[in-house]
């Protein structure tokens, strides 16, 4: 418990961590209460096409007369969902595989490490692209594919954590007491070693949001949802006379991704206070 309060204190004492948390909560409220905040339905079309920002339409309207502000607010739902589900899946797979690989060792560990290295060297975006292009443009697929292709960095972190924790006294005692390897991994190693993976996951949320935006921009996004990438793609042909339709969705993407970078750095600083001492000195 003490560890947790200390951790929270350290996190909040970091400039970036605090800023990230506040920005994230704002974003979350925007996504949760999107229908209340947005003055129009995101799909409502009107005769008021490509009109510049005004009191009626704070961010202007797009080529179908849809309110850009309402669409941006609703887009937050898609981005946050994609980010959390994809990064969550990636963390889950990475933690389990990394812990198994580090704990079991031997040939198993070598094979897994080779696979991790290959994945990390490979531009995963193209793999995601092919899979989405051939299997279908569906938000669920997109989230699954991003999660299934980005776990290796988490696995690598968890593997290193496992290797160091498994030499600690409490694990040795547990082993001497006859606890099964599964129990040791899930009750001792993972709960004690997963924090760096959590910090990495915050970064991965931002990465997943950018990947979804890129896919939508290429026309490979889910056609049934309102997403920032798709808005940018839609607005491309009109951008030279309707800058607002392309600028706002982009700015919100940047803010969201920055938010998760801040949170990731805050967690990192809370985890390794020594590093941040040097940084803030």
């Amino acid at each position, binding site marked *: 418990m003490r560890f947790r309060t200390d951790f929270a204190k350290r996190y909040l004492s970091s400039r970036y961590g605090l800023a990230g948390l506040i920005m994230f909560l704002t974003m979350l409220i925007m996504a949760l209460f999107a229908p209340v905040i947005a003055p129009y339905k995101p799909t409502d079309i009107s005769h008021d096409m490509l009109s510049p920002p005004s009191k009626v339409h704070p961010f202007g309207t797009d080529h179908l007369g849809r309110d850009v502000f309402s669409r941006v607010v609703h887009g937050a739902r898609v981005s946050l969902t994609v980010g959390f589900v994809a990064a969550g899946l990636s963390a889950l797979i990475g933690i389990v595989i990394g812990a198994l690989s580090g704990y079991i060792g031997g040939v198993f560990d070598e094979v897994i490490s080779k696979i991790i290295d*290959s994945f990390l060297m490979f531009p995963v975006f193209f793999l995601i692209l092919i899979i989405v292009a051939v299997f279908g443009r569906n938000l669920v697929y997109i989230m699954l594919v991003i999660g299934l292709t980005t776990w290796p960095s988490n696995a690598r972190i968890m593997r290193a954590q496992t290797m160091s924790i498994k030499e600690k006294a409490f694990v040795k005692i547990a082993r001497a007491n006859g606890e099964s390897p599964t129990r040791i991994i899930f009750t001792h190693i993972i709960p004690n070693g997963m924090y760096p993976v959590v910090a990495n996951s915050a970064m991965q949320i931002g990465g997943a949001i950018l990947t979804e935006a890129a896919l939508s*921009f290429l026309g490979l996004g889910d056609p049934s949802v309102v997403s920032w990438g798709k808005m940018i793609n839609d607005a491309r042909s009109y951008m030279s006379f309707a800058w607002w339709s392309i600028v706002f969705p*982009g700015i919100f993407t940047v803010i969201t*991704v920055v938010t998760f970078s801040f949170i990731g750095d805050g967690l990192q600083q809370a985890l390794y206070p020594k590093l941040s001492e040097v*940084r803030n000195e």
Partner: protein
Amino acid sequence: MDVLFAKYLFRRILSAVLLIVLVITINFFIIHLAPGDPATIMTGLENPSPQIIEALKRKYNLDKPLLVQYFKYMTNLLKGDLGFSYVYDQPSWKLIGPRVFPTLSITVTASVLAFTLGTYLAVLASRLRKKFGDLIFSLISYVLYAMPSFWLGLILILVFASKLRWFPTSGMFDMRASYEGFRKVLDYLHHLFLPVFTLLLIQLPVFYRVTRASIVQNLREDYVTVLSAVGLPNDKLFKKYVMKNSIIPAVTIFGITLGFSITGAALIEIVFAWPGMGRLLLDAVFRRDYQLLLSIYFLMAVFISVAMIVTDIVIAVLDPRVRLL
């Protein structure tokens, strides 16, 4: 070049070959297990007759079992045959060849600039430590790091091409002018500027942050304490020792970036209508041109592996400790 280093290098080459085989295998099976029959797509018809499909399948060996196709493909690769594009009805290398230079002229230029500028700014920022400038630099790097490359490209087009008219909006040459000689080169550079600038801004924060973190870490090392305790002037200490050690992570990333450079920056190429490799790759994805896709992936894997090995050698020269691993 000692025996240890030769051994180390041999291990790296072996794992590079392994990686190439693994990448090609994974891609081959993903692509071939995907729904959607290439023969049907190739006909380009709504309801192609079974005879056409049959003939096409026989022509391209698509009627054989998957494993047979796989071994056939692998042996062809060993013979130096990259593959054959169904869609264009041409050997893959004929399609890839003309794309290499345009792509590399964007990616390599941008990476070299990003590496130089990124490490330089990091050194500059660490000299400014504790000052306002450092905070500004790091905020900018956060924002650039979060920027979708395609959006940044579009915004730059909007500002510098549509509004200010300093640069052309897209393409590689001015189609209406058809310049020759030196004017043509100038026209090319004029078109090259915005895509390179976009990619530079996207890559800059990576080099900046890595070098910045590495400098901070290096300053804590014992050798810094010792050398400054024995009275080495700070400036000399920094220039002679800290800087050299601190750029090693950036060199690694530079190597990886160069490895990836062959596939181009697909999204940026799309935005600027640049006839490069990335666009060929995306086209191949959308048209299910499996063979062409595999050829590009193969080339990419080879490029990345070679870049990795070269990077390893460079780092071993910079940091002799690595050789002992």
